[in-house]
């Protein structure tokens, strides 16, 4: 099996959310992540993760024109690359295998 870049939990969340939004930018990603995970998301952590994902080649990002309601700052839009998609698929596959047949255990939880 070829060695694959390992996805951390938060990286996984970010990458999957980026995939869901197709072309989302920072604030959108944060809203979506907070809603879906129910956790508070730190912008610093998100950007550090985006930088890391980009250096691994899992996403590409582009800066859009500055917007006045954002204090004159541009948006950073991100898109999942083919490689990122593969990493996500592998990760999902592994998760499904790990949890296979264990649903009944959670009925009482």
């Amino acid at each position, binding site marked *: 099996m070829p060695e694959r870049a390992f996805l951390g939990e938060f990286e996984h969340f970010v990458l999957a959310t980026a995939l869901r939004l197709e072309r989302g930018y920072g604030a959108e990603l*944060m809203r979506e992540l907070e809603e879906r995970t129910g956790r508070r998301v730190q*912008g610093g952590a998100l950007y550090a993760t985006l930088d890391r994902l980009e250096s691994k080649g899992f996403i590409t*990002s582009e800066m859009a024109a500055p917007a006045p309601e954002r204090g004159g700052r541009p948006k950073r839009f991100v898109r999942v690359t083919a490689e990122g998609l593969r990493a996500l698929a592998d990760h999902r596959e592994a998760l499904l295998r790990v949890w296979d047949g264990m649903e009944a255990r959670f009925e009482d939880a």
Partner: protein
Amino acid sequence: MSASPPRLPRQLLLWVLPDRRSRDGLVGDLDELYRDRAAYGRVAAGWWYSLQVLAAVLHFAPRRALTWGRRTARAEMWTAIGKDLGLGVRLLRRRPGFATVVAATLALGIGVNVAAFSVLRSVVLRPLPFPDADRLAVLRLSMDNAGYAEGPPSIPEYLTFRDELRSWQHLAAYRRVDATATGGEQHAERVSVAVVSPNLFQTLGVQPLHGRAFTADESQPGAGAVAVLSHAYWQSRYGADPSALGRDLIVAERARTIVGVMPAGFGFPDSDIEIWVPLGLTPQALAARGVHQYDVVGRLLPGVSLSDAEAELAAVTRRVAADPLFNFHDWHPAFLRPLRVQVVGDMSRALWLLLGAAGLVLAVACANVAGLMLVRSEDRGEELAIRTALGAGRGRLRRQLFLEAFPMTVIGALAGVAVALGCLEIVGSLAPLELPRAEEVSVDMVGLTLTVIITLGVATLFAVLPSLGPGEAGVHGTLGQGERHSSTARTRTRFRHLLVGSETAVAVVLLVSAGLLLQSYLRLSNVDPGYSRAQVITAALDVPDSRYPEAEDAVSLFQSLLERVRAVPGIQAAGGIRRAPLSTPIGPSSIEIEGRAVSADGAGPVAVIQVATPGYFEALGIRELEGRTFDAGDRGGAVPVAIVSESLARRHWPGQSALGGRLRVDDPDLPFAEVVGVVADVRQNRLDRLPDQGTLYLPHAQSPTLAMALTVRSTADPTGLVSVLREEVAAVDPSVAVHDVRTIAQAISDTTASARFAALLQLGFALLGLLLSAIGLYGVLAFTVTRRTREIGIRIALGAEPLDVRRSIVRQGMTLVATSLLVGSMGALIAGVLLERFLFGTTAVEPITYGVVLGTLLTVGLLACWMPARRASSIDPMRALGSD
């Protein structure tokens, strides 16, 4: 209207983000999200924004530092840093002694401070582990008028308070008892039980983890056959089995159903309580107005302050006491105290003192490291001067000095953390020694960070000090003639002396404090308790009531028990007593003296009530002062008799004999008993204080009870008798449990444990301070001598006697030592006054302590001066002159 985020955090964010792209994106995103949130509330949004910035700073600051470094640093700078760091490590290896002393000094200073600070923070400063813990307070009675400091209320008093007071959300009563528990297949065992009013858990705001708490009707007589377990007891006895709920358990001879399990870590009033049972409001309990045994804790209504509640309490107390229907014969004024203060108690002051001592050690450590660093860097003054002359920049030198010192300071800091952990481990293992909340103690990060920053700051500052000093002029001066004549040199010398002098002065303070505590401990453990220290053994008995339902049964049980015990060879005397000295403390109860009117303030006389069999006074060696002790004639039907202690006799029959006086426990149904004897006072509850309200002894045959302890006096060492005692008790009745068997000597050692601990701890700190200041003293004097090598050489070459040289050096050193001892003694006097509260029979000015401490320090100082002096006077003049 546009909402913009707080400016300062935003500026910080802009500064810390590494590059334009992520900066612009993130700043924009946070601006946008801030606007969303600000619509609902600006303050909350501001907090959210600030936290976001803080998180971003933590994420990006390291990267920022790197890029900054990369941008500004040229390659050779990094090489140089690497070299300097390497030099630092090499230095460490070449002069391990110096590095070890610096690192060890830092480690000890940091270690004891962090440990002391952590204990103080966890025990004293952190709120109790209950929700809104600042609204919890205890209600106590002041018994000043009865010659007793304070005590808990009785049940009727508690009920009055509960029904009359309006400032409280809940008011609960509790009492700690030891009892025997038997559950299922387990053997009977001693357990720590709290008898509590059903609303105790509600009052504290803690819910059971499993099952339920008590209900209000469970304190009705006949109801309340239930128990709640502590988490630890549930785990150890029931293997954390949820089905333990509903099972039966016999506690204190009553079958009870387990209805609940408390969460882990919950323990009230003490952390070792294993079982809670509801307080039964039986007719006897409701009538026991004079039995002050139940502590009361309450939760104030939100918004009600302690002083409001206290004002209400005073008003209610006055109204109730004035009510003629309410015969408050022995009413004591009530007062409130925050629960935290009650729990931590005297420990709070002791811990602040401990922190003070640790702080002094830290000061000595800092001064020492500063002195060492200073000496070392001055040692290299010439080398540095040459390098400056050759063109090395000031910054370059500073960096070099810093990096050289870096490895040893880091090692010192790490070792300091290890020392702190070790100290806390020791504190943890000593936990039962009266340290409340010991289980909550953990390393305090604030203390750790502060201490490390302070020590490393001092170490680094003094390491790089020479490079911060004079510029070109200093270089010329140093290269020209050494620093012997320059004025900077004199300033530095003075500064070094100041450092060492203050170290020594602090050592005096530490040593004197330790000496006082040690003296106090020795006096305490040698105090005359009023009973024999040797050859006496005491054992508590647990007799099942069900087997001895009648009062006469109790009398005959103890008679046959004592007869058997007295027949054992080697036993001189044996007797029974309700509570053996230095076992569970006894509170005072109200008494009534025949023919004495109740005083106007409604406060009647009180006394510690003891029940004794014939032979008790003989077994314990309590002196008879007047009359007789109990004998076999003091039977149930005979004339009721009593024995009083010396202080009780003096208090109520001043200037006359108490013999023939008549008194009784405050209960109109009881007959008055005639005083037939007066015995010496004994230190019943504590070794450091007599129960100054006095003790009333009643004969067991006339006041039968099953709650008795055995006391035995042997002809020789009593330790071998323990098993014999158990066998004899088992021979009379195997269902009687014997526990807490110990000699009086052991009991004394147990009660003085905390004083011993404090004294030893302080002594440890003091020796640490002494060691550090001795090192400092020696280091500085040795350095001074080295500086003067040439001068001494010239003097000797010119014919000076080595002895004179030696004397001049010693004189110089001893002037410094003597001055610091003088200053230190003044500091010690202040410390002694602060300590006096903790001392037993010891004052702030103890000649022995001062004599020993000053003598020790003079000797240490003399040694530290003499050794370099000897070396100096043996200098070969030719070598000394050629040393440049």
